[in-house]
C-alpha cells in the first residue's frame, strides 16, 4: 500500500470526490490558491476556480452561503482556517445548519462538510491553537469526526462529503506531516465507528486525534512493565461509538480518556458519563481523564508543551488506575 502524509491524504479525498460528483464545491479563504496550509494545492488548476471558490474573510456569511447552497442541491465543503474562527460562524452552524432538516420536518437536507484545522502546533497562542470539538459535539444535528492518521483522514473525509447531513471534519494541524499507509481507491471509513489501534487486557486507553500517537507510545512503555493496554481511537465524537469502548472496558475493567482539549466540559466527560452507565459493575478503578488544564493556550513554547497531555502523563495515569482496587 502506498504511504501518504495526512495532508496529502486529505487532498486525495477532495480530488476524488470533486471528480466523482459535480455537485461537490470547495469554499474557503484562498482555497483556489492552495489554501493557507497547501491542502487544496493544484485542485483549482484541474477543476476550475468556479468549483474552488475563494471567499472574503466573512466566516459567518460564508458558512451561511454554503448551508444555503447545500439546501439547493450542491454538496459544498467549506474550510474554516482555524477552529478558533468557528466562533464567528456559530449562529449559522448551530441555529441553521444543524436544525434545518429537523425543523423543516425532513423537507430540507444539508449535505455540508465543514473542514477545520485544530490543535497546538508552533506556539501560536490562544487564538490559533484551541481544540473546541466539544462545543460541536453538543449540538444535535451535527456529526463531528476527528481522524488521527492519514488513512482515516481520507476515509472519513470521503464519508463526510457523501453524508447528507452537516459533518464537521476536524483535522489536527500537528498531524499534517505524519505519514501512514493509505489504501487507494474507494476506502470510505464509516462515521460513528471507533477503531481498536492495539489489543490489550488490563486497561483501556481511549485517545482522540493527536493523542493516538502518545497513547500508543505509552502502551508500549507499559508493556515493558508487563502491563497490557488496549488503545482505542473513537475517530467520531458525535455520534460516539460507545459499544466498542464499553466492550473493551468490560474486558479490562479500567479506563483512561485522553484528549488535547481542556478537560472541563470536554468530550472526555461524555465518554466517562456514558461508560460508567454502560459498564458500572465492571469497573475496578475510577475512570481518569488526561487532558489540558482549564486555561487559555499559552504562547510560550515551554508553557505550551506543559499544557499538552503527554506520553508520560498517560503512563502515570495508567499506573494509578492499576494500583487502585
Amino acid at each position, binding site marked *: 500500500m502506498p504511504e501518504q502524509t495526512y495532508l496529502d491524504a486529505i487532498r486525495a479525498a477532495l480530488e476524488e470526490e470533486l471528480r466523482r460528483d459535480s455537485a461537490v464545491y470547495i469554499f474557503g479563504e484562498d482555497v483556489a490558491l492552495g489554501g493557507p496550509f497547501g491542502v487544496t494545492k493544484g485542485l483549482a488548476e484541474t477543476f476550475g476556480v468556479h468549483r474552488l471558490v475563494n471567499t472574503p474573510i466573512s466566516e*459567518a456569511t460564508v458558512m451561511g452561503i454554503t448551508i444555503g447552497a447545500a439546501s439547493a442541491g450542491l454538496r459544498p465543503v467549506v474550510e474554516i482556517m482555524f477552529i*478558533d*474562527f468557528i*466562533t*464567528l460562524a*456559530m*449562529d449559522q452552524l*448551530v*441555529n441553521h445548519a*444543524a*436544525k434545518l432538516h*429537523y*425543523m423543516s420536518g425532513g423537507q430540507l437536507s444539508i449535505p455540508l462538510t465543514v473542514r477545520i484545522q485544530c490543535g497546538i502546533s508552533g506556539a501560536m*497562542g*490562544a*487564538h490559533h491553537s484551541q481544540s*473546541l470539538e*466539544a*462545543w460541536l*459535539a*453538543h*449540538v*444535535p*444535528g451535527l456529526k463531528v469526526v476527528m481522524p488521527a492518521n492519514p488513512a482515516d483522514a481520507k476515509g472519513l473525509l470521503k464519508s463526510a462529503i457523501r453524508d447528507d447531513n452537516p459533518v464537521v471534519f476536524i483535522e489536527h494541524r500537528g498531524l499534517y506531516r505524519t505519514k501512514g499507509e493509505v489504501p487507494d481507491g474507494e476506502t470510505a471509513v464509516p462515521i460513528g465507528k471507533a477503531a481498536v489501534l492495539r489489543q490489550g487486557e488490563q486497561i483501556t486507553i481511549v485517545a482522540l486525534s493527536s493523542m493516538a500517537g502518545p497513547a500508543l507510545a505509552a502502551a508500549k512503555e507499559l508493556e515493558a512493565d508487563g502491563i497490557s493496554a488496549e488503545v482505542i481511537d473513537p475517530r467520531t465524537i*458525535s455520534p*460516539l461509538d460507545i459499544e466498542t469502548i464499553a466492550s473493551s472496558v468490560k474486558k479490562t475493567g479500567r479506563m483512561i480518556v485522553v484528549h488535547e*482539549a*481542556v478537560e*472541563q*466540559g*470536554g*468530550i*472526555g*466527560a*461524555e465518554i*466517562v*458519563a456514558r461508560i*460508567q*452507565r454502560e459498564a*458500572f459493575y465492571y*469497573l475496578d*478503578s*475510577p*475512570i*481518569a*481523564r488526561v487532558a489540558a488544564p*482549564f*486555561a*487559555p493556550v*499559552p*504562547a510560550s513554547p515551554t508553557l505550551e508543551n506543559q499544557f499538552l497531555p503527554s506520553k508520560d502523563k498517560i503512563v502515570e495515569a495508567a499506573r494509578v488506575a492499576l494500583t487502585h482496587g
Partner: protein
Amino acid sequence: MTADERVHLINGTFLSLSPHRHVFQDLQKKFGDRMIAPPISELGFCGLATGAAMAGLRPIVDLSTGSFIYEAWPQVANEAANAFSMSGGQTRVPVVFHLFHGLRGGGAAQHSGSPQAMLWNVPGLEIALPSSPRDVKGLFKTAVASDNPTIFVDHIRLLDIRGEVPESDKPIPFGVADIKRAGGDVTLIATSYTVQVCLGAAQKLAKEGIEVEVVDPRTLVPFDLATILSSVEKTHRVVIADETHQSCGVAAEIAARIAETGFDKLKTRIRRVSTLDVPVPYSPPLEAHIGPTESRIMEAVRAALI
C-alpha cells in the same frame, strides 16, 4: 447601580419580552443615562461591553434569549475569556452577560438555547445559574462585583417563582453549592429552573417514602464538588437533572467528576436526565416531552434505588 456608578446596562430590552417589563421601566427613570438600547448587533454590543470593561467600567449586557449569544461568540469566548490570561494578568474584563436559557413554551429551536454547557468548556469565564429569588439577587451582586467575565444564566420560567429574599444586600459567593432539600436516599443534582422541578418531584417521592436530597451547585465555574461528594457519601446514589442537551451537557461533566473522584462512594451508576439530543421542536406536546420533566426525574430516582 446605586452602589457603583461604573455599572452600565447595555441592551435595554432587559425583561421586555415578558409581561414583567414594568419592573424595568422604573429602572429607566432612575438610571437612564447609564443604559443604552443598542441596535440588534449582538457581536457589536458584546464587543463594546468587553472593551468598556477593559477600560474600567463594569457593564451588564442582556442578550435576552440564550440562542442569540452564538452571534456574539467570538467576543465572549475568544476576546473576553482570554484577555486576562493572554495579557499575562494585566487586562481585567469585569463584564456580566445575562441571558434567558431553556424551554419556555413555543420557543422552538432558535429561542430555547442553553449555551452554558459549551461555555463551561471556555477557560476564563465564570458561570452562575440562580434557581430562586434569594439566589438570583445574591449571585447577581457577586457577578457584578467579580473582576472576571461572568455568564449569568437565567430562565424565563423562574420569573414567576415566589420566595423570601433577605433585605440585606449580602452577596452570595460563587462556588458554594446549596442543599435546597435534605434527604438520605438519593442525591439529586440540578441547576436553574430544573431545581424547582426537582423540588416538586422530591415532594411527591417523599409520599412514596423516598427522601431525596436536592443539591443546587448555583455556579458551574467555580464548581463546588466537595458539597456534592459529601452528599453522595451519605446516599451513594446520584441522579443529575439539567436542561442542556445530553451529549457533552452540564450533566455529563458533573457525572464524569463524580465517577472519577467519588468512585468508591457509588452503589449504582449515575443517571442523567437531560434535554434529549434533538433540536427543540415547536409543537407544545413534543417540547413538553423532551426536557427534564418531573416524571422522568422521578423514574430515574426510583431506578437508582433498585
